[in-house]
């Protein structure tokens, strides 16, 4: 039907599907951005928490080292008297701590003179080393004054490695007896601590001056100042370090690697937090590749892309299904409409045809009435005029005779007309009665032919009779059958030219039925009129009726009679060649 409309529908559905997909993609992109922010924030927070956690852990761990020394000192001092104090008794404690803790490089006792007197292990202890002699007495003096623990370093040890010095003053009843110095291998300690905690990321630890105490990757950097070794390419790192030196906690990102040729770079995310250990304020940092975040977000992207592709496919699939359903529906609808339209057109046509038939019937009726009135008036007019003429005395006698004959002729004609009309009326109202009796076929035909013999003689038409049936008699209505024969023969004579020929054939169809043909070589009947010549009101055409005379009711009456007697009547004809009227009648 309307394929334009259908393709519009498809277009609208396609556009809707595309809009839906586009909105999903845009929403996905938007969401991705947010997801990236959230993931980044989460990552930063998590990393910061991690660094704080490590810092606190390390802080606690290192503080424990101090507490251990302080506990040993307090324990010793509590039971001692200034006179009876013997520093040698520390040696066994030193040994225990050293063996147990593993974090100490050495544990030593410095007497009031600033001379290292005992230590464990002995190989790491410069016995007899005087701090004053080597101008190393600052921390010693400081703890003596403050009576509080103090930490120095980190510093490279003579024997290698990095050590942090924990100075714990020993007072017995407010009498200074010296200090314990615990040298902690800070690098190893830190590493040990970190190893005990499975930590993701690289770690470095710097003191408040920026000196590197620990670096999980670049061990050789230990002891160097981080700020001094920062490369200008490491964009962002200096800011981070400055924050760290200020003792702040936080997270930052810096470029760890930049290739100016390929313009590729790698960035790292650094979370840092302070480690407060005694008088020291260090900063510990956890580094991770920022690409981890990217890859994390990337994996989210992938999932989302999967989702978008999946949803898009679903939408397209649904769209396709909708289109299919619609087109199928359309087709069904179209088929239905076509069906309905056809039915409507058909019934319209039938109505038109019926209307046309009614019109024709109406016209035929009007024509019939007009002809009948003409036919009824014409003889009356002739009779009237001739009667008037007869009344006139001036009328000569030969004209008088002529007029009287004319009157009789017209009265007969009028009678025939009235009889025919009555027959038509009876056939119309099924009021025709048949008086059946035995009829001789020969007699019937002879009687009929003799009735039309004058007419035939006038036109010099010969009538041949062929009876080809063994049946001699039938049971039927003699008068009515004669009327049928006469009507058909009259009709044949009317339309057959002068010196024409008419054949009557009678034959058996079966035991109960005979067939009669009346064949003429007259003008024939046009093909388009052949179906209607038996119609009640039908006249081949009015002028032909006028030309040949008669009411035009003969054939209609003949059909009515034949059908009333249980037979059939039909005609075969060819124009200008002649007609063959055939009827059948039951024999009983």
């Amino acid at each position, binding site marked *: 039907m309307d394929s334009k409309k259908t393709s519009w529908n498809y277009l609208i559905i396609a556009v809707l599907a595309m809009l839906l997909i586009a909105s999903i993609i845009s929403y996905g992109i938007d969401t991705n951005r947010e997801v990236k922010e959230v993931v980044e924030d989460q990552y930063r927070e998590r990393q910061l928490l991690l660094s704080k956690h490590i810092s606190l852990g390390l802080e606690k761990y290192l503080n424990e080292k101090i507490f251990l020394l302080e506990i040993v000192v307090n324990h010793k001092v509590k039971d001692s008297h200034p006179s009876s104090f013997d520093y040698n008794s520390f040696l066994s404690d030193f040994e225990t701590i050293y063996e147990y803790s593993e974090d100490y490089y050495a544990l030593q006792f410095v007497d009031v003179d600033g001379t290292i007197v005992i230590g464990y292990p002995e190989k790491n202890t410069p016995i007899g080393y005087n701090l004053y002699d080597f101008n190393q007495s600052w921390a010693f003096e400081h703890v003596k004054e403050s009576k509080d623990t103090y930490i120095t370093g980190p510093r490279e040890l003579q024997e290698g490695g990095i050590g942090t010095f924990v100075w714990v003053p020993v007072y017995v009843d407010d009498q200074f007896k010296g200090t314990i110095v615990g040298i902690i291998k800070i690098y190893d300690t830190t590493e040990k601590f970190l190893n005990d905690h499975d930590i993701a990321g690289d770690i470095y630890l710097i003191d408040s001056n920026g000196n590197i105490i620990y670096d999980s990757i670049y061990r050789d950097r230990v002891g160097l100042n981080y700020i001094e070794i920062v490369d200008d390419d490491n964009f962002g790192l200096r800011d981070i370090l400055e924050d760290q030196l200020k003792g702040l906690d936080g997270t930052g990102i810096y470029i760890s690697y930049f290739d100016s040729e390929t313009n590729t770079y790698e960035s790292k995310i650094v979370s840092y937090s302070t480690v407060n250990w005694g008088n020291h304020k260090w900063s510990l940092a956890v580094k991770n590749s920022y690409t981890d975040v990217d890859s994390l977000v990337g994996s989210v992207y992938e999932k989302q892309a999967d989702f978008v592709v999946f949803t898009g496919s679903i939408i397209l699939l649904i769209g396709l299904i909708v289109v299919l359903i619609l087109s199928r529906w359309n087709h069904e609808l179209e088929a239905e409409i076509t069906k309905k339209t056809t039915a409507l057109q058909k019934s319209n046509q039938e109505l038109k045809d019926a209307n046309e038939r009614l019109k024709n019937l109406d016209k035929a009726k009007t024509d019939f009435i007009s002809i009948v009135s*003409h036919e009824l*008036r*014409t003889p009356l*007019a002739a009779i009237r005029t001739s009667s*008037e003429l007869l009344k*006139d005395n*001036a009328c000569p006698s030969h004209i008088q005779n002529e007029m009287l004959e004319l009157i009789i*002729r*017209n009265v007969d004609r009028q009678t025939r007309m009235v009889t025919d009309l009555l027959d038509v009326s009876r056939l119309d109202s099924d009021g025709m009665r048949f008086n059946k009796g035995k009829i001789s076929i020969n007699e019937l035909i002879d009687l009929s032919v003799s009735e039309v013999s004058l007419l035939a003689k006038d036109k010099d038409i010969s009538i041949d009779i062929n009876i080809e049936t063994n049946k001699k008699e039938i049971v039927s209505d003699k008068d009515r059958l004669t009327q049928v024969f006469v009507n058909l023969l009259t009709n044949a004579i009317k339309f057959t030219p002068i010196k024409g020929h008419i054949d009557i054939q009678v034959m058996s169809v079966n035991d109960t039925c005979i067939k009669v043909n009346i064949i003429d070589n007259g003008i024939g009947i046009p093909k388009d009129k052949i179906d209607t010549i038996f119609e009640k009101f039908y006249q081949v055409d009015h002028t032909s009726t*006028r030309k040949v005379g008669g009411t035009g009711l003969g054939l209609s009456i003949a059909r009515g009679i034949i059908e009333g007697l249980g037979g059939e009547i039909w005609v075969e004809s060819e124009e200008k060649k002649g007609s063959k009227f055939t009827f059948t009648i039951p024999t009983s």
Partner: protein
Amino acid sequence: MDKELETKILNIMAQNPDSTSISISQELEIPDSQVNQVLNKLSDTREKILIVDDEMDTLLTTKRALEIDGYNVIEANDGKKALEIIRKENPDIILLDLMLPEMDGFDVCKKVKTDPLYGHIPIIMLTAKGEIKDKVDGIEIGADDYVTKPFNLSELKARIKMILRRANV
């Protein structure tokens, strides 16, 4: 053909006032009877009425009535023949039936009235149809009068006389 013959005979008589029907027939090499027929026709001074009707009996009674009254009555059975006869005989008046084979009364009337040569011939329409519409149609196309069948013979005669008088004035 007839008119040609009439013209020839009239010419001979004009040139030779003494010529007889025999001498004319000899001169034109035609039978004497044919010459007499033409002469009779030429000498007929009666008013000529053409009746056009396909009903022979109606036509016959009217013809006889008018003949008794001393008219020269000629007849035609259909429209086409009527037109032929009008051209040949040039009647003084036409009684024209409406329902005719070949060509109906209206068409014949229209043809006659629009012909410059015969348009003057008065026409009385005769028909069994008494409907007013037919009358109006007939008058509109130039019929001079209208008589409905079955007509009163004296009325018809009176109408003919009246119309002929009007035409001759």
